[in-house]
C-alpha cells in the first residue's frame, strides 16, 4: 500500500534520511524505532508532506505522493497524528472532529464516523462541547487519534503516542490502536517505548543515523534484544563533539 524507495531528506545541508526504503502493506501494523535523532519523525513528516524529500519516491496505492503538501496527501487516505498531538486547542472537541473529517464533507458520513470514534473513546462523548485544550493529557491524545480517524484513512501514521503520558494511559491507547488496526486500518507508528511498540506490531524497521539498519518481523526482533541494543544503545550514538577527550 505504502512504498518508500531510496528516500533522501535534508535539513538544509544536513542529511536526515539517507536512502530509506520501507513498505507498509494492507492492514499491517508497522513500528519504526531507533535512537533519538535517527530520523523517525523526519520519515513520518516526509510521508505526510510536512517535509519534501530531496531524492527517492513515496507511492501510496500506486500514486506518487512525495513532495505533495499535507493537505493533498490526506486526500489520498493517509492521516498523520503528529508528535505533541497538534490539536486545535481553543476549539471544541466536536469542531476538532469536524476538521478531522474535512476531506469527507458529507454530513451523514460525519455523524456515522463520530458515533464510531465515540465508541472507541466514550469519554469524548461527555467532553464533546469542551475546548480541546482543557482536556487531560490522555484525553487529548485520544482526541488526536479520534480526529485522525475521522478522515477514514487507509493508513494511520502515529508519532510518539506515549509522549508525556502516564504508562497506564499509554497501555490503554495501544489497546485501542490494535483494535482499530483489527478493523482494517493500516498503522505506521514511531514509538520510544520499543518493547511496547514491538509487542503490538507485525513488522518493524530500526532506523539508525538516517538509514534503515534492521527490518523484520516484530516478534523476531523482540527476541533478539542484543540486536536492538546495538542500534538503540550507546554504539548508535552520534559521535559527541564534547565531553570526550
Amino acid at each position, binding site marked *: 500500500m505504502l512504498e518508500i524507495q531510496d528516500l533522501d531528506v535534508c535539513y538544509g545541508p544536513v542529511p536526515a534520511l539517507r536512502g530509506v526504503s520501507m513498505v507498509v502493506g494492507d492492514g499491517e501494523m508497522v513500528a519504526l524505532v531507533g535512537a533519538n535523532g535517527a530520523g523517525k519523525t523526519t520519515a513520518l513528516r516526509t510521508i505526510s508532506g510536512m517535509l519534501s524529500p530531496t531524492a527517492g519516491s513515496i507511492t501510496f496505492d500506486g500514486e506518487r505522493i512525495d513532495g505533495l503538501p499535507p493537505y493533498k496527501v490526506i486526500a489520498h487516505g493517509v492521516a498523520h497524528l503528529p508528535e505533541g498531538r497538534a490539536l486545535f486547542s*481553543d476549539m471544541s472537541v466536536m469542531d476538532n472532529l469536524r476538521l478531522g473529517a474535512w*476531506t469527507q464533507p458529507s454530513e451523514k458520513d460525519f455523524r456515522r464516523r463520530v458515533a464510531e470514534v465515540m465508541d472507541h473513546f466514550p469519554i469524548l462523548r461527555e467532553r464533546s462541547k469542551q475546548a480541546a485544550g482543557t482536556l487531560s493529557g490522555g484525553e487529548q491524545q485520544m482526541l488526536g487519534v479520534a480526529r485522525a480517524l475521522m*478522515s477514514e484513512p487507509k493508513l494511520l501514521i502515529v508519532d510518539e503516542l506515549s509522549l508525556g503520558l502516564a504508562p497506564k494511559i499509554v497501555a490503554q491507547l495501544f489497546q485501542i490502536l490494535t483494535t482499530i488496526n483489527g478493523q482494517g486500518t493500516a498503522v505506521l507508528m514511531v514509538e520510544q517505548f520499543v518493547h511496547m511498540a514491538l509487542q503490538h506490531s507485525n513488522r518493524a524497521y530500526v532506523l539508525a543515523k538516517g538509514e534503515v539498519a534492521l527490518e523484520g518481523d516484530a516478534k523476531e526482533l523482540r527476541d533478539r534484544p542484543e540486536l536492538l541494543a546495538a542500534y538503540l544503545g550507546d554504539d548508535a550514538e552520534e559521535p559527541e563533539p564534547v565531553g570526550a577527550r
Partner: protein
Amino acid sequence: MSITFFLTQLALAVPLMAAYALFALGIVLIYRASRVLNLAHGVMAMLPSYVVVELRTRGLPMPLALLAGVASGALLGAAVEMVFVRRLRRISETAQTVGTVAVFGLVVAFSARVFGTQPVRPPAIFPEKTIAFSGSGITYGQLGLIGTSVVLTLGLFALFKFTRLGLAMRGAASNRTAAGLMGVNPDRTTQVAWMLGGALAAVAGILLSAVTTLDPYNFPLQALPGFVAALIGGLGSMPGALLGAVVVGIATGLAPALSGVPVIGHFFSSVGSAQLLLTVVAFIVMAMRGERLAASDVRAAGLAGSVSAGILRVRRRPADQRQLTRGLRVLAGLLLVVAAVSWVLGAPFSWVGTATTALSYTLVALSLVILTGWVGQISLAQASFVGIGAFLTGVLVRAGLPFPLTLPAVGFASAAIAALLGLVALRVRGLYLAVATLIFAWMTQIYLFAQPWLAGIGGSSSIQTKALGTPDTFPYLDFTNRTTFYFVMLAVTTAAMLGAANLRRSKTGRAWFAVKGSEVAAASLGIPVMAYKLLAFAVAGFLAGVAGNLLMTTNQVASSSQFLPQASLMFLAIAVVGGLDSIGGALAAGIVFSLLGQLFYKVSALAGLLEIVSSLLLAVVLLAFPAGIAGLPPRLAALGRRIVTGRIADRGAAIWQELSDRRVRRRLAREELAAAAAGTWAAPDSTSPPVDEAELQPAAAGWPVVVRRPSGPPDALAPILERAEVELVEEQVEARERESVSRLAYVPGTATKVDLPERWNRASILHAQDITVQFGGLTAVDTANLEVREGEIVGLIGPNGAGKTTLFNAISGLNSPTSGTVALFGADVTRLPVHQRAAAGMGRTFQLIQLFPELSVTDNLLVGTHVRNSSGFASHLFATGRAIDGERSARQRVAQVIELLGLQDVADQPVTGLPFGVLRLVEVARALVTGAPYVMLDEPASGLDNAETDKLSDLLLWVRQTLGISLLLIEHDVRMVTALCDYIYVLDRGKMIANGEAADIRRDPVVTAAYFGAVEDEEPAAPPQRLPEADLAGVH
C-alpha cells in the same frame, strides 16, 4: 454638567463606535489568521476611500464606485499578504510587522503624491439629511455607517460559525500545521482572511471618510482606535473586539466631557483629549493583560528553525574571527574622524548641510539599533522623541538656558519620558509594543504638540540660538553657522557611536541581547529584565532627544508637522536598511537617506518622490537583504565566489580552493600564535586570598563545602578554581593554570554517587513550605513541602498534570504562590523576583532549551557571569578600567568552565545548529558559570535518548561530587531519577503523596498506584529498563 450632555456625547460617539468595530474586526481577523498585527490597516481603509472619490469624480455610479473601492481594499490585503507577510514569515514576527510598516509608508507616500496632501470631502453615500436627536442630530450617513457595521458583523459571525470556510479559518488560526494535516490549505485561508480584512477596512474607511474628511497623513491614523479596541478584546477574539469598540467609542465620546471633572479636568480641556484618554485606556489595558515575564516566552528560543541571518536574527561573528585587530580599528577610526573633519573645509555649503542631516539621521537610527536591534523592543515613536527634544529645547532656551547646557538637560528629560513609555513595555512585547508606541506617537502629535506651553501656538516654536563667546575672539562658536554646527553634530554622533560600541561589548550589551533572546532565561541568570528594558528605552530616548535638541538649536524653529508618526517610520526604515543591529550600518544608512534627500531636492523631476523611494527601499531591504547594509559585505563576497566558481571551470575552482586552503592554514597558524600569547592571562591573581588547605579538601569528606565569600553572590565554583591555583603554586610547574584546570576537568564515566552524611545533619539549601498555587478556581499545587539539603540531588516526579512545573515555577519565582514560603539558604525569598533569587544563588535550566540564539556558546556563558560582574552602566559606556577588569575576569571564568566541561570544540560556534545534546550541556554550563550552589533542572532528559541521558546523569553526578552543587530535578524518566537522585518527592494532583530515598519510593504502593499505574500484569508499566535493578544498585 447635566446627564443629557453626557448622553448626547455618547450618542455622537456611536457612529465612530461602528467604524472602530469594523476596524477591530478586520485587525482581529488578520491577526488570527497570520499572527500579524497589520499596522497597514489604516492605509487599507484610506486607499479604497480615494478610489471611490476618484471614480465618482469620473462619473461612475455610486454602487459601482463602492464595489470597486471595497474590491481594491480586498486586493490590497491580498497583495500585502502575498508580497510581505508570507515571505517574511521565515525571518521573524518583527520582520512581518516592519513589513506592514513599509506598506503603510508606501501607500501614504503614494497617496500624497497622486491624490495630494490637502484634505478632500468625499461624496456622500447616503442622503444628506439629518434626524434631530436630543438637541443635536444624526445624519443618514452616520446611520448608514452604524447599520452597515451591524450587518457586516452579524454576517461575519455567521460565516465563522456555520460555514466550512469559517471552520477552516478557525482551524488554521488555532493550529496551522494541524489544519494542513486535516486537508485544509492554510495558505489559502490566510489569503482569504487578509482579503476579508482588507475589505472590512475598506468598508469602514469609505463610510467613515464620507462623514468626515480624507487626507493621506491623518486619515490612516483613524484606524488606531480599532487597534485599541482589538487589544481590549485580547486580539484573538471577535466578540472581544466588538466589546473593545464599544469601550473605545464611549471613551472617545466622553473625553471632552471630562474637562469638567476636577483635578484631571484641565488635561482634557484641549484638542486631542480623546487621543489622550484612548492612550491612557490602551496602556492600562496592556498593563493589565501583560504578564510579569511572559510564560509564552518559554519556547525553544528559535533554536530549532532559525536558518537565515535576518532582521533581529543577525548572527554575531565570534570575537576571534573579527578581521581587524584593536590597533588597526583605532587607526581606522582616527583616519575616519580626520577625513570627516577635513573634507568640510573645501566642501560646498549645501553638502555640509547634507552631512549634518546624515549625522542626525544616524543619531536617531542608533537609538533604534539599540532599542530594537539589541533589545528587541520595536518603537514607532522615535520621531515623537525628537519632537519632544526639540520643543523642550525651546522651553529651556526661552527660560534662559543656553545651548551646550540644553543638550544634557533635554537628553535626560527625553530619557525620562521614554522610560515612562517603557513602563508600558514592561508588560507587553513585540507586536503589542509596536502598537503601544504608535498610539503614543499619535497622542503626542495630536495632543502634546498642541499644548501652547510646549510647542507654541499652532504647533510651531522658535528660539534665538545664542553663540558661545564673543565674535572675533577665541573661543567663539556660532551654532547657527553650518560648518560649526557640523562639527558639533560630528562630535556628538561620534561620541554616541563610541558609547554604543562600548556598551555592546560590555555586560550591559550582553544583558540586552539576553533579554531579546529569552526573558525567562535572562532573569534566571540574575538579569533584572525590567530594569534593562527601561534602560534601553531611556538610552534610546536620550539619543532621540539629543537629536531634537541639535535640530532646534541649528534651525531655531520647529513645527509639530516635522514629527508625524510617518517620520518615525522613516527612522525605522533607516535603521532597518542599515541592518537593525549594526552601529556602522546606522551611519551608512543615515548617509544614504540624506544623500537621497539631497538628490530629490535638487532634481526637480524627482521632487516629492523621496517618501515613496524611502518606503520602497525599506521594502526591498526587508525582502531581499534582511541583514541590511551591514550584511552586504559577506553577501557580496558570496556572490563574488559564486561568479568566480561558476564562470571559470574546474581549473579556476581548483585555484580558488587552494587559495582558500592557504588562507585557512594561515588563519590557523595565526590562531595558534594567539593562543600561545594568550597563555599569559592565566597568571595567578595576586588579589585573591591564600586558600586554606583544609578548606580545599572537602572531597575527602565525600563532598566539598561551598565556599561563601563575605560579599557578593555565593560561588559554587570558587573551590575548584582556587584549587587549580593552589596546585599551580604547589607544583611550581611552568604549566599554565589552564592545564591545571583541565586536570580537574570532567572525565566521563568517573563520577560516582557519594556517601552523604545523614540527611538531617546537612544544611537546608532550599525549603519550600506549604506551597499552594491557585489559578482562578483551580488549585494546581496544594500545601506542598519540598526540601533540598546540602550536597543532594533531589528528584520531583509525578504523573502528568500533577503540578510539578507549577511548583517548580513557584520555587524559581516565575509564579507567585497563593500561600506558603520559599527559603533559600535559610533566607525567605518568597517575595523576591526571579533575577534576585538567581543572584542569591539559584540557577536553573529549562525543559525547552532557552539559550540565546544570536550568541555563540562563549557569549551565552558570558551572560552567566552577570551577577559576578559588579561594574556599572557608566563604566560600560566609557569602557573604564573597571569595565575592562570585569570583562577580563568574566572571560577568564567562562574559559575555565569551558575547560572543566570539555566544551572547547564548540566554544566559538553559534548555538543555532549545534546538536540537541550539546545544547543541553551548554545550558547546564551556563547555570554553572553563575556559581549558583543550587541548580534546578526542568526535565533535563526530555529529547535525549537513553545513552545521552546516561551521559547527562554522569555529568550531573560529577557536578555534585566535584563542585558540591545541590540539584533539584523534575523528570519523567524514572530510570534517570532512580539512578541519580538521593531523595525523591512524588506529587500527585497537586499534593505531595510521598517522599523518601529512591529505593523506598519505588516500593511505596501509594506511588506505584498513582504514578507507575497498577497495571503490571498487562504491560511493562515503566519506561523500558535497559539496566536491570541490580546494576543500579551497584552504582551506589
